[in-house]
C-alpha cells in the first residue's frame, strides 16, 4: 500500500478541506499535504527498489475477463511524477494570496472550494501517472477533466462559463476517442494492463486513433482551439498546473500506451510532421499575441510539439529520457512564467504586454522569473531547458540518421524551428521586464511573501536540475524493466 497513498492522501485531504471553513487553515492543510506527498515520493525513489507495481482489486468474471486495479512507479513515470509533485507545493503556496485577491471579485465561491478542487485535481494527475491499467487511467483522467472544468468555471476570467464548457467538450471528445482506442487494444490483447508485448498484432489505425485522442488533450496544431482559451481564462495558479502538467499528460499517455514500442515508419513521419506544425504554429502564435497569458498558451502548443518529437523516437530509453526531461524543464519554466504573469495581474491587473514595462525596477523577482523562464524554455544554461533541448536534439537526430533521409531532413527542420522560442521569449522580456517603467501613474503594491517564496523555489529547481541530470536520468534508467 505504498503507491496507493499517493492518490488517497490528497483525496482525503480534499474532503477535509471542503469541510474546513477557515481560509488559512484550508490553505495550510492542502499545501502541507502536497509538500508531504513530494517528500514521500522522494523517499520512495530513494529507498524503494524500482520498478514497483502493486495490485489492489483483482476481479475475475466467469473466466471471461480478468481485471486488477494496479498502480506502480517505474522508469516511464518516475521523473514525470517527481516533476509534478515538486512543482505543486509552490503553486499551492502561491495560490493563497492570489486567490484571496481573485475571490474579492467573485460571488458565492470560497477559498476552500478552490483548494479542495485543486487537491482532487492533484490526485487525478498522480493517479493518471501511476496507473498501470486502462480502467484506472481513464477514471483518473476523468477526475482531472472534471476538477479542471470546475476550477475554470468557478474562478476563471472573462467569459468563464463558455470557456469552461469549451474545455469540457473538447476533453470529453478526446476521452471518447482514447476510450475507443484503449478498448480496441483490450479486444485484441485481452488484458487491461499496459503491456508493451500486448501491442503485437494490433492494426495500425488504433495507434492513429489514440494519437488523435491524446493530441486533443495535448492541444497539438489543428486540435488546439480549446487550449489558448482555457489557459488564458483559467485562474493563474491553475494555469500553471494546466499548461505544463495536465496538457503534458496527454503526451505521457501516448508514451505509456503506444509510444516507443511501435516501430511504424508512417507513424514516426506523422509524429514528426505534426510536431513541426505545432512548434511553428505555436511559435508564430506566441509572436503575434499581445496578451501575456495567451502568449504562454501558444508557447505551450509549441512545446507540446517538442514532446511529440521526443515521442517520435522509437528507442524506449531515449524516448522516455528526452520526453521526461523536457516535461520537467517545460513544467518548471512554464509554471514560473505563469506565476510571474500572475504577479502582473495581482499587482497591476494588466495582461497586455504593450501596456506594462520596466517590471525589473519594481518587482525584481517577477522580472527575474520572466527572464529565467523564457531563457530556460529557449534552452540556455544554467537552466534545465538546456539539458532537455540537448536530449531531444540528440535522440531525434540519432534515430532519424539511422532510419532514412526524409526523416533526417524533417528532424533537422523540426530542430531549426526551435528558434521561435528565443524570438517570442525575448520579445516579452523586452516589453515587460526591460524598458521604461509603465504604467506611470499607478501605485505599485508590495508583493506578499508567499509569492516570493514560491517563485524562488521554482527558480532554484530550474537551476538544480541543470546540475544533476545524471542523478535523475540514472534513477530513471535504473527503474526500467524492459
Amino acid at each position: 500500500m505504498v503507491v496507493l497513498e499517493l492518490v488517497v492522501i490528497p483525496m482525503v485531504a480534499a474532503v477535509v478541506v471542503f469541510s474546513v471553513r477557515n481560509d488559512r487553515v484550508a490553505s495550510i492543510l492542502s499545501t502541507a499535504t502536497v509538500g508531504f506527498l513530494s517528500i514521500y515520493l522522494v523517499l520512495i525513489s530513494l529507498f524503494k527498489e524500482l520498478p514497483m507495481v502493486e495490485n489492489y482489486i483483482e476481479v475475475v468474471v466467469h473466466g471471461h475477463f480478468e481485471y486488477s486495479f494496479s498502480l506502480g512507479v517505474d522508469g516511464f513515470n518516475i521523473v514525470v511524477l517527481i516533476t509534478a509533485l515538486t512543482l505543486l507545493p509552490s503553486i499551492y503556496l502561491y495560490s493563497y494570496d492570489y486567490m484571496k485577491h481573485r475571490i474579492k471579485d467573485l460571488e458565492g465561491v470560497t477559498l476552500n472550494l478552490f483548494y479542495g478542487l485543486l487537491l482532487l485535481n492533484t490526485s487525478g494527475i498522480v493517479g493518471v501517472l501511476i496507473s498501470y491499467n486502462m480502467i484506472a487511467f481513464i477514471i483518473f483522467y476523468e477526475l482531472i477533466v472534471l476538477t479542471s472544468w470546475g476550477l475554470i468555471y468557478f474562478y476563471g476570467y472573462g467569459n468563464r462559463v463558455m470557456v469552461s464548457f469549451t474545455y469540457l467538450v473538447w476533453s470529453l471528445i478526446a476521452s471518447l476517442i482514447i476510450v475507443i482506442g484503449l478498448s480496441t487494444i483490450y479486444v485484441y490483447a485481452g488484458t487491461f494492463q499496459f503491456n508493451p508485448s500486448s501491442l503485437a498484432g494490433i492494426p495500425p489505425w488504433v495507434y492513429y486513433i489514440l494519437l488523435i485522442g491524446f493530441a486533443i488533450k495535448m492541444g497539438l496544431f489543428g486540435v488546439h482551439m480549446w487550449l489558448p482559451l482555457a489557459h488564458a481564462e483559467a485562474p493563474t495558479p491553475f494555469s500553471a498546473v494546466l499548461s505544463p502538467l495536465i496538457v503534458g499528460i496527454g503526451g505521457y499517455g501516448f508514451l505509456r500506451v503506444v509510444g516507443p514500442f511501435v516501430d511504424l515508419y508512417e507513424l514516426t513521419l506523422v509524429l514528426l510532421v505534426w510536431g513541426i506544425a505545432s512548434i511553428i504554429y505555436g511559435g508564430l502564435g506566441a509572436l503575434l499575441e499581445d496578451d501575456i497569458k495567451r502568449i504562454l498558451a501558444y508557447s505551450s502548443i509549441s512545446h507540446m510539439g517538442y514532446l511529440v518529437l521526443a515521442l517520435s523516437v522509437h528507442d524506449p530509453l531515449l524516448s522516455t529520457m528526452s520526453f521526461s526531461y523536457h516535461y520537467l524543464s517545460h513544467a518548471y519554466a512554464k509554471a514560473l512564467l505563469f506565476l510571474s504573469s500572475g504577479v502582473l495581474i495581482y499587482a497591476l491587473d494588466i495582461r497586455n504586454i504593450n501596456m506594462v514595462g520596466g517590471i525589473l525596477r519594481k518587482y525584481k523577482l517577477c522580472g527575474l522569473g520572466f527572464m529565467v523562464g523564457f531563457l530556460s524554455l529557449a534552452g540556455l544554461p544554467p537552466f534545465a531547458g538546456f539539458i532537455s533541448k540537448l536530449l531531444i536534439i540528440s535522440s531525434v537526430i540519432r534515430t532519424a540518421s539511422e532510419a532514412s533521409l526524409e526523416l533526417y531532413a524533417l528532424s533537422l527542420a523540426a530542430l531549426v524551428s526551435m528558434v521561435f522560442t528565443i524570438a517570442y521569449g525575448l520579445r516579452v522580456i523586452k516589453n515587460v521586464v526591460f524598458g521604461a517603467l509603465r504604467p506611470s501613474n499607478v501605485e505599485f503594491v508590495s508583493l506578499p511573501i508567499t509569492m516570493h517564496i514560491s517563485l524562488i523555489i521554482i527558480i532554484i529547481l530550474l537551476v538544480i536540475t541543470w546540475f544533476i541530470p545524471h542523478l535523475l536520468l540514472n534513477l530513471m534508467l535504473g527503474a526500467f524493466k524492459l
Partner: protein
Amino acid sequence: MTNDLLIIELMAPTIAALVLLIFKNKSISAFISLISVCLSFAASLILLLNVIDGGIISIDLVNEWIVLPGLKPIGVTFTLDFLSTLVSLLVCGLATLILTYSISYVNADSDYHDTRRYWFLILIFIASMLVVINSDNFILMFVGWEGMSLSSYLLIGYYYGDESKYWIGGPLNKAPMYKPSQCSYITFLIVGSADTFMLLGIVMLMVLTGSPYYEDLYVIKELLIEGIPDWAVVLSFILFLLGPIAKSAQFPLHLWLPYAMAGPTPVSALLHSATMVKAGVYIILRLLPYLIEISHVSSVFTLIFYLLVVSGSVSMVIAAVNAGRSIELKRVLAYSTISQIGYMFILLGVAGFAEIPLVAGAATLYHLINHALFKSALFLTAGILIHTTGTKYLNEMGLHIKEFKSVFIVTLISSLSLIGVPPLMGFWSKEFIIETVIGAGHYILFLITLLCSFLTAFYATRMLVIVFGGQSDAHYGHHNVDRLMYYPPLILTSATFIAGIVGLDIKGNLLRMITLIEELEHKHLEPSFIVASLAVIFAGVLLAVYVNVSYIPYSSMFDRSFVKLRKIYSLRKLLIILKEYKNRFNYRKMFNYFIVLSRCVNWLVHRERHYLNFGLVTVVIRNFFTTANYLLDLTVMVIGRNSFKYLKKLFKAVGYADMDTFLSVYVVTLSILLTGMLILLFR
C-alpha cells in the same frame, strides 16, 4: 597542482560573482571582482609557464555529467595546451585592466546605483569564456558559449530603464534611435538563433563520431573512407560554423555588433571587441587541425574553407565601408572590429589551401592578440572621450589636442597600429597576413586585403581628424574623469608599442609553438608587396585628411593649398563620386536576397510598427497565420459557443439551472462512454 590552478582560474570569478551579491557596498563588490580576476590571471600565467615547452595537460573534474545511451559520457573535462593557455592569459589580463577601468566608470553612473549586477554579469562572462577556451568537448564548450551569449545579452541591456541618454543611433529626427532594451533584443535574437544551429551541428557531429570530444573528430576521416556521404559531414560543419560566424559578427550574421554598442563602454571593450567576439575565431582555430585532416579525404569539404574566406572578405570590406560612414564613435569602432575579424576569418580559410596550414593558424593568433590590444585601448579611450564631452557623435566632440595630450597619444598609437604603420605591432601582423595569403597563392585575396587596408586607413584617420579637430576655445569638459581610467589604455598602448619593436620575435615564437616545427624554412616576402600595402595605406590617410579637411585646426592655412590641389587635379569630381558612393554603397540595396533576410529579422524585431509596409514574405506569413487562426477560431465558435447555446436552451427547456446543466452534460457523456466500453467488453 595544475588541477588546482585550473580550478582557481575557473572558479575564482564564479565564486566571486556569487559572493559579491551579499554586499551592497559599491567598492566592496568592485574589490572582490578585481581580486578574483587577478587570481585568475596569476593562475593562467603559471599554467602557461607549465605548458610553454609544448606539453598538453588533461584534467578531468567530473567524468559523467550527462550520459546519453550510445555516446561517450559527457564530462567536465579540460585540456590545456599552448593555444588555450595563451588565450586565457590574454582574456584574464585584459579583464584585469578593463575591470580596473570600469570601477570608476560604473560607480560614476547616477542612474544605476546598484552596481552588483554589472560585476556579477561580467564575472560570469569571464568564467564562461575561460570554459570555452579550456574545455575539450563540444558540450562543455557550448555551455560556456551560451553563458557568454547570455551575459553579453544582459550586459548590452545593462541600462534597461531606456533613459534617452543611453539610446544609440541617430542623431535625433534624422536617423532611427535604438533603446538599450531593443538593442539587446536584436543582439540575442541573432546570436541565440545561430547558437541553436550550432548545437544542431554539434549534435550531428556527436552522432557521427559517437563522442563529444574534439579528439574523436578524427573518426570522421575513417568514416568518410568507409563511405558515409560527404554532405552529411559538410552540412553538420556548416551548421556548426554558423555559431562562430554569428558570435564573431561575420557576414551574413554581422548585423548585431553595432547594436551591441548600447552597453557600457568597458563591456564594449572587453566583450564586443577584445574577447567574446574572438571566441568564434578561437574555436575554429582549435578545430583547425581536424578540419584540415578531414579535408584531405573529402574534396567537398573545401567548401568549408571557401565559406570562411567568403564570409571573412565580404564582412571585411562591408564593415570597413560602414566604418567610414558612421558618425558615432563607438559605431566606427564596432564596424572596425567586424572588419578586423574578417582578416582572421580569411586566414582561417586560407589555412585549408596552405602548404603548412598551421602557419595560417599562427598568423590568426597573432592578429587576434594584436587586435585585442589596440582595439580595447581604443574603446577605453572612447569611453573617456564620451564621458568627457557628453556626446557620442564624432562631429560634436571637437576636442583640442593640446588639452587632451595623453588621450590623443593613446588614440593615435592605437589607430596607427590598427592601420598597420611600422614599426607598431599592427604592421607586423599585417605583414604576416599578407605573407600567408600570398604563400597560399591567393592573389585575389591579397587585392581584397589591400582594399581593406586602404579603407582602414581612411576610416581610422577620419575618426582621428574629426574627433581631435576642435578649436582651442571649444566648450567641453563638463565631466571630470577619474585618473584611474587613464592607466589601462596607457598600459595597453605601451604594450602595442613595445611589442611592435620586438615584433618579429613574437611571430617566430608563435609559429614555433603553434606548428610545433622547430626549424621552419622562412620564406621572406618580396618587398614589393609591403611597399604596395604601405602605399595604399598612405593613400587612405591622405584621402581621409582631404575629405575631412574642414575639421583640422588652423585649416584655413592649408585651405588655400587644398583648393589649389582641387583645381589642378580636379579632385572635386572624385569627391562627388565618393559622395555618391557613400549613398550608393548600401549593402542592403546591393545584396537583394539580403533584403528579405534583414526584413524578416526586422519584422521580428519591430513587428508592431513595420509589418504592414514590409515585403512579400512577411505579408504571406502574416496572411497565412491570420487566415488559419480565423478558420480555427471559427471552429471554436461553432463547436464551443453554439453547442453551448443549444444545449443551454435544451436544458433550460427541461428545467435545469446552469450549474446542474453542466453536471448533467458531464454525466450523460460519461455514461455514453461507459456504455460504449461495456458493449465492447461483453461483445
